[in-house]
């Protein structure tokens, strides 16, 4: 059909001022969407990284006042866990590191050799099931009644919950933006129909079909969304990149896991095209529906 993407067909809807407004609205909306999606993807990576890091990690503490008994229990636990099926790594935390951890609270005076300090053993598991943790606990208890097993996942579960909340928030924002974009497109299409009522009536009288008229609108709205979307996406990607650089400088385990991988950048770059498609469909349906109510 020749009311296609030719220059004369494009000129049929003449509203440059509205086009500019629509482009900027779309730029802002897609900027926010890409940011939300970037936050969501980054959070997914942080959560995954946290899961991988914590899921199979635990610390065995031997809280024994008697140094000889504590050392014997520690040695027994290390001996039992070395090569135990499901245990990837077992290592006693060096006393120097414990001292370094305690120094800010106890000062030099607190690091007295007579002060009873618990020993700590880091254990990495390949199987992080509850049954496996229970077996490790049983081994530790056999060696000492004062042995305590801490799962790292338990300590950081509030952080994990917070990351889950962030992911859900990002998802909700994206859905909200999609709905808002659809609403803006419907509004733009209806305004366009009102603005161009006379032209559309002439087109109808000359034998134009609803689909031909709808294509004029859907093409224009898709183009405006795409131009605005590319502007918004470029700005949002630049901001994501900047934030990623800043996060890396923080050196915090959980937060520095919020990195975007090459695949994520591609997903974010695809968002304006997705929105343009959505806008095109919404415009087409809206215009066809409105025209269907006329003769």
């Amino acid at each position, binding site marked *: 059909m020749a009311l296609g993407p030719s220059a004369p067909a494009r000129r*049929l809807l003449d509203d440059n001022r509205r086009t500019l407004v629509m482009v900027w609205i779309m730029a802002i909306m897609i900027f926010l969407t890409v940011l939300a999606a970037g936050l969501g993807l980054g959070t997914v990576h942080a959560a995954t990284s946290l899961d991988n890091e914590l899921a199979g990690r635990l610390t065995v503490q031997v809280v024994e006042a008697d140094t000889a008994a504590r050392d014997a229990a520690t040695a027994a636990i290390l001996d039992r866990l070395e090569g135990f099926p499901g245990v990837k790594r077992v290592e006693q935390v060096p006393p120097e590191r414990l001292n370094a951890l305690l120094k800010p609270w106890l000062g030099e005076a607190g690091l007295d050799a007579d002060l009873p300090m618990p020993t700590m053993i880091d254990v990495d598991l390949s199987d992080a099931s509850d049954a496996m943790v229970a077996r490790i606990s049983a081994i530790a208890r056999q060696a000492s009644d004062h042995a305590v097993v801490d799962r790292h996942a338990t300590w950081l579960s509030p952080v994990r919950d917070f990351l889950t909340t962030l992911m859900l928030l990002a998802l909700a924002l994206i859905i909200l933006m999609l709905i808002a974009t659809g609403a803006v497109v419907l509004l733009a299409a209806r305004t366009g129909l009102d603005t161009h009522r006379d032209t559309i009536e002439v087109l109808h009288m*000359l*034998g134009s079909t609803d689909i031909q008229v709808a294509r004029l609108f859907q093409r224009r709205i898709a183009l405006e969304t795409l131009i605005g979307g590319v502007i918004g996406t470029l700005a949002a990607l630049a901001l994501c990149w900047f934030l990623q650089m800043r996060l890396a400088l923080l050196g915090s385990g959980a937060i520095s896991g919020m990195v975007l991988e090459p695949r994520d950048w591609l997903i974010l770059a695809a968002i304006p095209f997705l929105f343009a498609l959505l806008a095109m469909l919404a415009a087409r349906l809206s215009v066809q529906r409105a025209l269907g109510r006329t003769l």
Partner: protein
Amino acid sequence: MANIVQFENVGLRYGTGPETLSDVSFTLAAGAFYFLTGASGAGKTSLLKLLYLARRPTRGVIRLFGEDAVTLPRKRLPGFRRRIGVVFQDFRLVPHLSAYDNIALPLRIAGMPESEIEAPVREMLAWVGLTERGRAKPPTLSGGEQQRIAIARAVIGRPEILVADEPTGNVDPAMAERLLHLFESLNRLGTTIVVATHDFHLINRVGHAQMMRLDNGRISDPTGLLRHPPRRVEE
């Protein structure tokens, strides 16, 4: 000649107002030339709107090209409208398109490739004497020039029926005569012409034309027959 249009007891009412057209019955033969006349407000434009499918009647039967136009599904209307050329009283040119693009519109709507559009559009521009004004936009054209562009747009698709509402209302007598010749030449090619006009001089110029008159929304000839040849009418 076969009938191309048939109206039977057609009535038209806008909203809850009185009937604008009442019990209108007539037939139009394919290839004939008709004038529709009557006082302002008699219902000429309303009748033409029914003819070019801009409205559906509130009652009665309209048959167009042998099919019932009243119950015609909406999706079939475009196909029928492409067979009817319309010259609107207010021209209805698309103001931001050039004269050339306005004339080309029916061909583009019909799906003609761009490469095949230029020649007929140039021919039409020459036909209406506006070869040099092809790039001009309607607001920069005089009323008469706009009217000629509207006529060129109406006839470029070689319609089976040409409906013109006061087509000479904005032109001088010489141009009116020229436009009439355009209509006659189109009529000779087989197009049925229906011209609504107050211009009795124009009506008397076309010897073979038939005339129907509307008075208060009714065809004034009680027999429903159209006169042929038209009676000479004094201004």
